[in-house]
Structures are given as structure tokens and as C-alpha cells.
């Protein structure tokens, strides 16, 4: 029997297989906050066969664009997306790591121009190596891993 952790939604986006503890970061990346008008629910520390524990996020009444969703791969490379219509899964896919991300990661180099008061947004080139995700700053070339520490 499939357990029901949070109620089914009629229409919207379900993000599953988020590493436990990172649901909040997923919302941050998607720009979802108290000003968002859609109802958002989160399930934390859900028992998962594959992952041990995982988080789930559901956004009701909103089909988030694939391009936006792929940014989640920076911190949740195995996240799966279910787009729900009339309580049924209309589309299911795994997030794909974007090659470039803008304005999402912060460069740890204090002397990098991207951290100055210039009208600038950070640009990082992203690459997976085995299970690890690396990103390289477009401006200073600094390489980072464990990207969840560097979200803006």
C-alpha cells in the first residue's frame, strides 16, 4: 500500500526524492516564500526505500517550468518531478543538472567581483563528477562543491 504522507493535490507540482533536510532549500531555489499565493506543503524525513529518509514538496495549482525545476539538481540531484492534473500524474521526470546557473550561487571568494556592489549577478558553470556536483565561478574561476552551502 502506498502511504499518503500529505494529501493528494488536484493540480500542481510535486517534487519528490529530495535529500532529507533540504526541502527548505528547494523552496529557496524556486523563489517560493510567504509572498507566493499558491498553497505549498512539505513533508520532512519521510521514510524512503531508496534514500532512507527524504523530503517532499507539493505546490498546488502551479506547474513550475522545467528550466526552473532543473536548478534543484544543484542540491537534490536525484529529485523527481510529478506534474499533477485532475489527481493524476500527467508528466514525471528526473531533474537534470543545468550547465549554467545565474544568481543562485554565491562565490566564496571575497575578492571576486561578483561579491562587490556592482550591478552583477553570479554566474556558475555546473558539472557533475560521479555523485558530486561542482560549480566554477564565471568571474574568478573559483571551484566549489557541496553547493547547498553557497545558495544566495
Amino acid at each position, binding site marked *: 500500500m502506498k502511504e499518503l504522507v500529505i494529501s493528494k493535490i488536484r493540480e500542481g507540482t510535486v517534487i519528490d526524492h529530495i535529500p532529507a533536510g533540504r526541502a527548505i532549500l528547494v523552496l529557496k531555489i524556486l523563489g517560493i516564500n510567504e509572498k507566493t499565493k499558491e498553497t505549498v506543503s512539505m513533508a520532512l524525513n519521510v521514510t524512503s526505500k531508496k534514500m532512507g529518509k527524504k523530503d517532499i514538496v507539493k505546490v498546488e495549482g502551479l506547474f513550475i517550468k522545467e528550466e526552473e525545476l532543473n536548478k534543484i539538481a544543484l542540491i537534490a540531484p536525484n529529485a523527481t518531478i510529478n506534474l499533477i492534473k485532475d489527481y493524476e500524474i500527467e508528466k514525471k521526470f528526473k531533474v537534470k543538472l543545468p550547465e549554467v546557473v545565474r544568481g543562485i550561487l554565491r562565490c566564496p*571568494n571575497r*575578492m*571576486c*567581483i*561578483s561579491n*562587490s*556592489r*556592482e*550591478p*552583477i549577478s553570479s554566474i556558475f558553470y555546473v558539472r557533475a563528477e560521479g555523485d558530486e556536483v561542482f560549480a566554477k*565561478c*564565471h*568571474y*574568478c*574561476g573559483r*571551484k566549489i562543491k557541496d553547493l547547498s552551502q553557497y545558495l544566495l
Partner: protein
Amino acid sequence: MKHLISIDDLSKDEIIGILDKAEDFEDVALGLRSCKILEGKILANLFFEPSTRTRISFETAMKRLGGEVVNVSAQEASSMAKGETLADTVRVISNYCDAIVIRHFLEGAARFAAENSSVPVINAGDGAGQHPTQTLLDLYTIRKECRRLEGLTIALVGDLKYSRTIHSLIKALKLFKNKIYLVSPEILALPEEFLEELDGNAEKAKLEDIIESVDVLYVTRIQKERFLDEEEYRRVAGSYRITPEIVSRMKDGAIILHPLPRVDEIDVRVDSMRQARYFKQAFYGVPVRMAILSEVML
């Protein structure tokens, strides 16, 4: 539009193309031939950090090719920086000139300047970041003085950890097949990421073990500020000092380079020895910068 921001942006063929062009300009740089191909063009030197040597080298290169130069000094630039952003400064200045040479204390500043400029931007050093014209003149010097750029044994000596000149040179040397020795005190050793880039073409060595086999000895300064203890600095720096006794063990045709300014890491008595090529290296900055200026403006 062509900018020159990082040595990484250039392919091996593009590098060779610039070196060949520089070769053609050498007699112009020496004042033996007139070649006013940049007549009517204006170069803006935008220096947020003083570097008289680099600025004069660019200015000379531009003037030898018939162009004009406007200089924004470090003092003027920093007072400008208080009032407006670099983005705005570059937008304004790029409307006055045909190319900008920029030196800035922040890493990535030159790339950001290029993104906001309507004319080509040349990076003359951005903090601890890139200084590609220095690298090109280093390569030019090696090719000129050793008559090739491949199959050489090159020792990099001194501060391999912080020296931007060394990091940039390593990236370029990787494109050419050479044996590289890394000679530095352990605390100033080459960072791991650069070692990886060299993929096994470099090894750590002691100066006395390799001095007889090197074709190029590239020396950099060991800075006092890197050491907590003055005594330790003196002991370490002293053991990497290039003296006439060391140089006399070098093979025929071997050369010594240094990005200058030098403090005392090369004994002044070495200057008159045939291996000393660092002043020639500084001169080569002019034809190399002529090649770069004509490359981006024509």
C-alpha cells in the same frame, strides 16, 4: 568583439598567432621601422591599482604603432570608483576610446568590464586572478631565447602558491609539451588544482638536483608577508637565491627569466652572465603588447 581576459580563452593556435605577430613588430618596437597601423586610435589605460611597468609597456606599444593613449591613474580611478560603479565607468570610458586596458584589485573585474564595454578590453591584471599579457610575453621570451616552445625542461622557482604569473604560465605551458620542475618551499608549493591540470608533466624537485638539466629557470619572488616569522623567511628565501655559483652550473643556452621587479632573489652579479634574460624579457613586453593591441583593434 575580441577581448583578452584570460590565457584560458586562447587556443594554442591563437597564442602562436600572437607570438608570430609580435616577432614581426620587434623592429618597430626597437624604433628601426615605422609602422603606424593604429594611427587615429585611442587606447585608455584604466588602472585601479598602480603598475607603472605594465602601463608604460602598453603606452609604448600603442605609441610605436601610431596610436594615442589616455591614462586614468590609480588615484583618479579610485576616486571615480567611490562615485560610481565599474560598470558605469567602463560604459562611459568605452565611448571615448577604441580599446581599454584595465588593471583592478578584484578578481573577475576585467571580465565584468568586458561585459559592459562597447570596445575591446585587455586584462592587465585582476587581483590574484589573471594577467594574460605577462604570460604571452613569457612564452614569447622562451620561444625567442630558446628558439622553441616545446621539448624544454623548465624549472619554476620560488612562490608557486600565490604567484599569479606562475599559475597563468602553467596553464599556457600545458598546451606545449615541456618537462616542468616545481622548485619551492613546502609552504609555497603549487596548489593541488594546478598540479592536476599539469597531469603528470610536472614534478617537485630541489634546485641543486636539476640545475644542470634545465633550459629555462623561471624565478619569482618569495614575499616576506607569506611568513609568520622573519627568521624563517630569511632562511627559506636565502635557500632559493640564484647566485653566480648556481648559474655557472647551468648548461649552455640555458636562460633565467623573472617577471620583475626583483628584490634579491637573483644576485645582481648574475645580471652580466649570459643566462640572464629578464631585462630582455621586459623589453619583449612591448612587441607582444603591440601584437595584442593590433589584434583587438584591427
